[in-house]
């Protein structure tokens, strides 16, 4: 696909100047910004936010990319300064175990319980007789043998 000159993505809305960067870095930069939360407006990513801090942080992310840091290193860099709060994607850790695993554990548990119950209900319905039926059957058999 044809692409026009790639421009640094963010700085425009904060009113700063723009640098031409290569395409892959541009893509990385953009994806990173969507994963990071602005601490000022708090409900926008760094990519969307107009706050000054967001502008500073975008510049920092750009600098770190230019320095050749990997995505993980950049995220660790920001996490060391602003904590987990800046990460829209909660890190995998003990404190987030319930968050990440909770829905799936619950899913497995309910699925297992339900399947077991359906099987049992089915067995009871098709295979066994109720107490009344059993008693009647007994009576019938008894009379037959008399």
């Amino acid at each position: 696909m044809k692409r026009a000159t790639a421009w640094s993505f963010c700085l425009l809305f904060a009113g700063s100047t723009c640098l031409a960067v290569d395409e892959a870095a541009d893509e990385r930069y953009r994806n990173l910004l969507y994963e990071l939360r602005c601490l000022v407006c708090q409900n926008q990513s760094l990519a969307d936010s107009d706050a000054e801090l967001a502008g500073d942080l975008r510049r920092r992310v750009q600098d770190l990319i230019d320095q050749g840091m990997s995505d993980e290193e950049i995220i660790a860099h920001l996490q060391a300064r602003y904590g987990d709060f800046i990460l829209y994607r909660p890190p995998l850790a003990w404190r987030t175990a319930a968050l990440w695993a909770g829905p799936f554990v619950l899913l497995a548990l309910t699925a297992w319980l339900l399947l077991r119950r359906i099987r049992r209900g089915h067995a009871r319905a098709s295979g066994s007789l109720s107490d009344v039926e059993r008693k009647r059957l007994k009576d019938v058999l008894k009379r037959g043998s008399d």
Partner: protein
Amino acid sequence: MIRGWLAVAVFAGLVAMLAFGLTRDPSRVSSPLIGLPVPAFQAERLASADEHFDSTALRGEWSLLNVWASWCTTCLEEHELLMRLSQQLALYGINHRDTRDEARNWLQVYGNPYRASAFDEHGEVGIELGVYKVPETFLLDPDGVIRYKHVGALDEEAYQEQILARIREGRP
């Protein structure tokens, strides 16, 4: 009906948690820097571009590192308290995203409580400290370790309960 009571119990837990949530400010972000040495940074001093402000020099005594700016209206709310504290504590400033002229002028008009201020024109130092809402105040122990961070205007109550209490505790 175990299932029913289970639902009631889960719901009660939820309500208790939400009630607790009402007492908290959700926009307040805890700092990961607490308990760690203050990040090493060097910056120009506000007073003069030739002199340097070195964070690693902030040791030997308890000190406060206050992030401020001339455009910050909340900073005025805590200014009087800072002026008073400067008599008792080593107080350093970080002038955040400001211009030299305006910042110096501001100190002249309202008084300068700082032993020295770092000039953080582009917010680089701010990022190192995880600053997101000016003013912020850091408490450093004699080893240069960050013990506490206050976000927003410092008041007498926070000073007494958070800062002074920690200093007293820390002293042998």
